[in-house]
């Protein structure tokens, strides 16, 4: 099953870069099992990124204001709505999925969002906050756990698009 691990954010803007940094650290470990993609884009532009995958883990920052910074929030596609206060970059992913389905475009049948709660609005040049930096390892581990869970679920291991 072709698998995407997508990190969203801006690595130059403090905690906003959490998703990018988390997936970058997984590149070696996921080689051959998932395509690791980093993107600063948002909205419909991401349609092209999802096309061609069966499964996707989206790694992002999120600002719900309901958890302490550094908390990892896990969401399925249907839970990612205004009700849960979407993350900074993936807002629109449910719309992307709906549009892809309506227009017959490729979109991963299974999408999980793993996001770390951040406190501040993005500031250029700021370092990661302590609490978010401390959560990055856990965030990476959760991504790997998700990949492993998919691997063992139906005996269809995760792969890249270019095996």
């Amino acid at each position, binding site marked *: 099953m072709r698998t995407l691990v997508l990190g969203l954010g*801006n*690595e*130059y*803007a403090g905690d906003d870069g959490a998703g990018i940094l988390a997936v970058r650290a997984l590149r070696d470990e996921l080689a051959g099992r998932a395509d690791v993609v*980093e993107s*600063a*884009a*948002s*909205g*419909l*532009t991401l*349609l*092209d990124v999802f096309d061609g995958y069966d499964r996707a883990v989206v790694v992002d920052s999120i*600002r719900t*204001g309901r958890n302490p910074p550094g908390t990892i929030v896990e969401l399925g596609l249907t839970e990612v*709505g*205004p*009700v849960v*206060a*979407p993350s*900074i*970059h993936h*807002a*629109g992913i449910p*719309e992307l999925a*709906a*549009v892809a389905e*309506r*227009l*017959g*475009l490729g979109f991963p049948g299974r999408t999980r969002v793993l996001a770390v709660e951040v406190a*501040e*609005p*993005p*500031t*250029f*040049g*700021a370092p990661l906050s302590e609490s978010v930096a401390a959560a990055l390892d856990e965030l990476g581990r959760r991504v790997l756990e998700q990949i492993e869970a998919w691997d063992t679920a139906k005996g269809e291991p995760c792969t890249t698009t270019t095996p």
Partner: protein
Amino acid sequence: MSEILIDPITRLEGHGRVHVFLDDAGEVDRAYLQIPELRGFEKFAQGRRAEDMPQITSRICGVCPMAHHMAATKALDDLFGVEPPPAAKKIRELLYSAFMVEDHALHFFFLGGPDFIVGPDAPKGERNILGVVNKVGLEAGKEVIGVRKQLRDLMAAVAGKAVHPVFGLPGGISRPLTAELQEQAQAAAARAVDFGGFALQAFRDVVLGNPDYVELVTSETYTHRTYSMGLVDADKQVNFYDGTLRVVDPEGREFLSFAGSDYLDHVAEHVEPWTYVKFCFLKDVGWHGFVDGADSGVFAVAPLARLNVTEGMPTPRAQEAYDELFATLGGKPVHHTLATHWARLVELQYAAERMAELAADPEILDPDVRTLPTATPEEGIGVVEAPRGTLFHHYRSDERGLITSANLIVATQNNAARIGMSIDKAARDLIHGAEVDEAVLNKVEMAFRAYDPCFGCATHTLPGHLPLLVEIHDPAGEVVRELRRD
């Protein structure tokens, strides 16, 4: 005094809020948009290598990275005092035109589309991207996505697909165009030109065919008579990539013409205590408040302003569309904010035709695409027309090319005063008392959605599904009612 707060809650601090203050009689006393600033950029840029600015600034915005990349690249040309070879300029403009087509297509059909294609009074469940697809049809929806994909594939092939692609360099670009890529560009351009015709026809059918929409577009609620600014070529015709800045007055007469490098002589920033946003105005006129007219330095940028500025369109199909727009809306200039949507499609048509011209130009295959800089860097200014209006990048560096100061004026800043006026006027005309319904709020939103403001050039939601929080406060400041639209 009561306050109605329209807050795109999903983005919290990252995005704008509309505040509407009611007086004791329940009428609108004042309404304005708050946009957070892009924090820390100038400090962040200091000490970095100037050559890295096109890569760094293209990450500022998830929506228009190409505009920042190109403005930064042009600022580097100026900083290092180097003139790119003709082929390099043409390839840059080719790519930039492709970007303009895809961005304008995205906005019209999917971001602004719900307002007109689905309709301002349609149930909220339909006023989204799927509603647009249902209205224009599956095939048309696929074509919007398909054209964009073809253009994006071309951009990736020309500019590089890597995580951190390097395309624009001081004095040129990183690699010449191959014959194969030229063919790919010609095919994409041909499809884009046809798509431009399709999009304009869709506008005629859906909007112009509906007298209610035409009345809405031309209503006083959505009209502001301001100056307009945009880049023009030597023939005083619109160009997105390069040229001279031209300003026309509210009557459409040329008021100013200046090089981008002189922008500080003509554009100044007004500060208000209630927002970080600096409101750009024309120095030559001065700041006289959020008011219309020739005595107010407030000006507009973006598609409609550019059409008011240009002396006709440089390409034939776009010229026809331009003539039709002004003939229909009562002659030039047009000050109806909502006509920006139509102007966007005229520009889409032009960008597609311009792309086709450049793709067919034999010189574009010239392998000479870089002039190596030899001068000592000091100061550089780059200007482009971003989809949302004029974009300035201004850098200073030390003799090693390390940035000592960086200033960006993004389109939304240039438009900020007029956007504020549009919201204020729409709110005054449409809101009477705290019992505000969904359709009214949407019509207030339409006043600023036409500009497609990029809040803080940070990130972007999909408007048309812009979740809003409305808080209505009684004169004591207590929340008496909360209205939420997801």
